């Protein structure tokens, strides 16, 4: 027996720009069929197992999203022993993201951390000796994706979701109080009022979803530190990265007191840049940035952008910063390529053992190469090997759509004149869905709300 159909980005194989989306479950083929058009003109369902099929991924309107190879592995001859389809997309980050969203839209659900492996084991694909490893993977991956899903929501977004949930909860509590305490003094439920409230929440969700594609929802981002001595051009680099989109600025509790983070979307990769306030403040004033501070930032970061001034000889500070980069995912940038070079890329490369990019933040030169390098790092699997933030983005958007469809069902139920009970069932589903985003579990909330709002009792 096959499970429900799950999809996720499978680990990329190191070639930048290629991404594999894996579908597994009873509906894997039918989901793939809806979004993949083989070049042969046939349907993907017409192909036998273990065949790679060339074609295009198309969106709901039939527009091409990406060129792709679909690899069909029918049950039980697959990793999970379920029907599996892998879509290898070539077009880079944005098409990959759209493709993932399409799998959700056609009925797959986002896979939980380690879920493919879990299925592989439970379906007898992996032998006993691997059980321990499977359990470890599940624990590690789930913890990480939970952290990613809930820990990195912006205050704005989660506040928004909480507000909607609160609105819906208020309606549920009223309905439930009327049902559970028909003889107490609970005001009659006026379904038109419920209807108005629900429509209002739906409008807000719709507004939000419109901008979901730009990655506004989840600002988890790749923790990125920009380091370098004063006047090396950190501030200019920051501005250059941010120019595409003046992102939301937030205070993240738990980091340095006065540190402010900003988000930049660099070629589809959301970067969460640490301590932008610090970067701005130290840049104009001639004072030592403090290697300690740089060390702290490098420790926090998943990606380090290290800037060096090509027009001045390397000094002790530069050397210290170079030392910090040991064993870190760093991109070394040689700035001021517009000025006469004193330090060359080759000299730096020799010291850091990593490729060095020459840029000019002043002339905005070399930024495309930087974007490509960042994408490479992220989707080449060097950093953040499981889910990119856009996956979380799509996951959230998907949940919002599902919540919205429950709300739509509630409106239909009201329209059809069904009993209060049925309205409440739909609203509860919507409320629980939204809770999946903020990670709030279903507890005694409804009952607490009833007792705090209504004076009930014999």
């Amino acid at each position: 027996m096959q499970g429900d159909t799950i999809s996720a980005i499978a680990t990329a194989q190191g070639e930048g720009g290629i991404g594999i989306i894996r579908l597994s479950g009873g509906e894997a083929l039918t989901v793939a069929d809806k979004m993949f058009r083989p070049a042969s003109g046939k349907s993907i369902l017409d192909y036998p197992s273990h065949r790679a099929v060339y074609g295009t991924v198309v969106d709901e309107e039939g527009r091409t999203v990406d060129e792709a190879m679909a690899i069909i592995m029918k049950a039980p001859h697959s990793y999970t022993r379920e029907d599996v389809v892998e879509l290898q997309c070539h077009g880079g980050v944005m098409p990959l993201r759209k493709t993932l969203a399409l799998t959700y839209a056609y009925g797959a659900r986002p896979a939980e951390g380690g879920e493919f492996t879990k299925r592989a084991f439970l379906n007898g694909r992996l032998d006993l000796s691997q059980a321990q490893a499977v359990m470890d993977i599940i624990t590690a991956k789930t913890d990480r994706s939970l952290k990613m899903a809930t820990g990195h929501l912006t205050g704005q977004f989660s506040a928004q979701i909480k507000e909607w949930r609160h609105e819906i909860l208020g309606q549920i509590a009223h309905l439930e109080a009327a049902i559970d305490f028909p003889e107490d003094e609970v005001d009659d439920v006026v379904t038109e009022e419920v209807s108005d409230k629900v429509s209002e929440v739906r409008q807000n969700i719709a507004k939000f979803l419109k901008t979901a594609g730009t990655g506004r929802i989840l600002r988890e981002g790749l923790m990125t530190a920009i380091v370098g001595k004063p006047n090396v051009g950190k501030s200019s680099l920051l501005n250059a990265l941010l120019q595409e989109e003046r992102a939301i600025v937030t205070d993240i509790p738990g980091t340095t007191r006065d540190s402010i983070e900003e988000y930049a979307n660099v070629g589809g990769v959301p970067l969460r840049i640490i301590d932008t306030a610090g970067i701005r403040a130290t840049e104009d004033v001639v004072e030592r940035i403090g290697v300690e501070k740089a060390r702290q930032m490098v420790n926090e970061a998943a990606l380090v952008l290290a800037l060096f001034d090509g027009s001045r000889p390397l000094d002790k500070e530069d050397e210290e910063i170079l030392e910090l980069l040991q064993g870190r995912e760093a991109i070394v940038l040689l700035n001021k390529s517009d000025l006469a070079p004193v330090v060359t890329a080759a000299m730096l490369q020799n010291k850091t053992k990593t490729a060095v990019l020459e840029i000019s933040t002043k002339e905005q030169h070399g930024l495309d190469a930087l974007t490509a390098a960042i994408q490479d790092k992220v989707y080449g699997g060097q950093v953040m090997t499981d889910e990119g933030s856009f996956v979380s983005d799509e996951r959230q958007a998907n949940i919002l759509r599902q919540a919205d469809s429950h709300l739509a069902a509630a409106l239909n139920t009201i329209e059809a004149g069904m009993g209060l009970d049925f309205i409440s069932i739909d609203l509860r589903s919507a409320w629980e869905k939204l809770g999946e985003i903020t990670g709030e579990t279903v507890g005694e909330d409804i009952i607490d709300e009833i007792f705090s709002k209504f004076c009930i009792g014999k």
Partner: protein
Amino acid sequence: MDNKNVFVAGNYDVIVVGAGHAGVEAALAAARIGCNTLLTTLSMDNIAMMPCNPSVGGPAKGHLVRELDALGGEMGVNADKTCIQFRMLNTGKGPAVHALRAQADKKLYQFTMKETCENTENLDVKQLLIDKLLVEDGKVTGVQSETGEIYQAKAVIMATGTYLKGRIIIGEHTYEGGPAGQRAAVKFSDSIKEAGVKLMRFKTGTPARVDARTLDYSKMEIQPGDTACRNFSFMSDEVTREQIPCYLTYTNEETHKILRDNMERAPMANGIIEGIGPRYCPSIETKILRFPDKERHQLFLEPEGRHTNEVYVQGMSTSMPMDVQLEFLRTIPGLENAKVMRAGYAIEYDCIDPTQLKPTLEFKNIQGFFSAGQANGTSGYEEAAAQGIIAGINAAMFIKGEEPLILKRSEAYIGVLIDDLVTKGTNEPYRIMTSRAEYRLLLRQDNADQRLTPLGRRVGLVKDDRWARFTAKQTAIKEALAFLENNSINPTQEITDKLTGAGIDPIRNATSFYDLLRRPAVDYDKLAGLFDLPELAPEVKQQVEITITYEGYIKKQLEQVERMEKLEEKLLPENLNYDDVPSLRDEGREKLKAIRPRSVGQASRISGVSPADISVLLIWLEQQQRLKAGEGKADV
């Protein structure tokens, strides 16, 4: 234990301590299944006493009564015989939340239940105060009474209600006692504590009873019963019943002022009350504190029976001193001259932390020891009775070595109630509510028989008469549904005229009666008036209509149930050592150790156990299974 000098007064399969609503159901169930059973009570005159309000049922509570009736319990039958008013509540709110509520004649209810107990085969009823639980090697062996004699048993069910170290509080005055002038049981809780049971202290309360002759009903709103005759039990055939009305009136600013002015004399304010009370049953002083802006609170005056003038003042639960009680009651329209016959009071009592129980209601650490009712931290007669029947059944199953009866959350409110208690515990007296059930559409009071009577039959509690009635009804429903599916009408002019004449939109294609019934504007009687349909009994017609009209919604819930079911069916070994399961998170591991869930499904509902922990458990179970099957050897 040295038994040489101790008089062994009896030897039973099952002993039930306490003969309240949980106790009588437990004892009747065990005895009817065939166990030699002893039911003990502090007072033979107070079996199945209703110390609080004189009513049975309501949303979710009425569902419980229907369910325990479907299993072969007594509460529904007894209520039908003795209640003096019936109302179906929530009729406009969807079939799943329709709820039957009845006003009881308290004394008649009690004496009728007493008579049933006394005349049940295999059942002895005795007035005894039980002081001690007897345990040897982690197994129950019996109980000892205050007079020293011993009653041996293979299973003991505690159904001690609010009597364990009961303390009554009226204003500044407190005394040791049970409800309504009863004795308290002061030693039993220490005895079970010694045996390793964890205790909690809860509180509840009740309002004053006033003399009917001193009330002016003309100043109140009358609340009559339904004109249609209703019954709780699937076995009751009552078609007429005299109905006695209740009356509704309200407090006012004057009432609230008196309460506010005396607030420092309220035992909950001055620290006399330490126990935790229920939120849904607040005293009037609590209501005024928590909802200061509310201008009035409603109260129902409910007769306590046909042969008494005592009237229950529902909504005015209080533990204020006597003078304050009288003063505030007399500000209420219709109660200006009220005479109080019994004062309102609060009661504090010991109960157990229900997470110590298995879903069978047996203690995890004491074999053969079960607990049911208010002693498990619940509130309400119906909640108590529902647990009682399950404890009684499972004590019997334990003795007979048969599979226990564990109802699923998707099967019964009883399942929701017990699963909540043993999985999550409770920090206030627990009341069942429809909003606690996630599969509410399936758990309707109208289909309780369909859900549970076969299970009652399996354990031996559903006797032949009930079974015959049940199977006849199910057959009739099946036949009716088949008829409606297999017979259709064509869009001829004649049919179109008929339909439009009855206000039904015409059909375009051949349409089955089944599909016609799906339409909101169509019901069975309407169709039967137009076409030749078989005559159906009302309860059969109701099932047919609900099945067809709500098919889509019901199907959706059934799908949800099916998804959850897989986890429910994965049982965890009782002796599982969670320290042996690698990769569990610390919090999850601790919670699993504390609750020791029966199934992976139950584990998933424990707060603090994460989805990752559940995945790990599944992998681990699979690993163990394969090891057992010998795959391990083959690998080596």
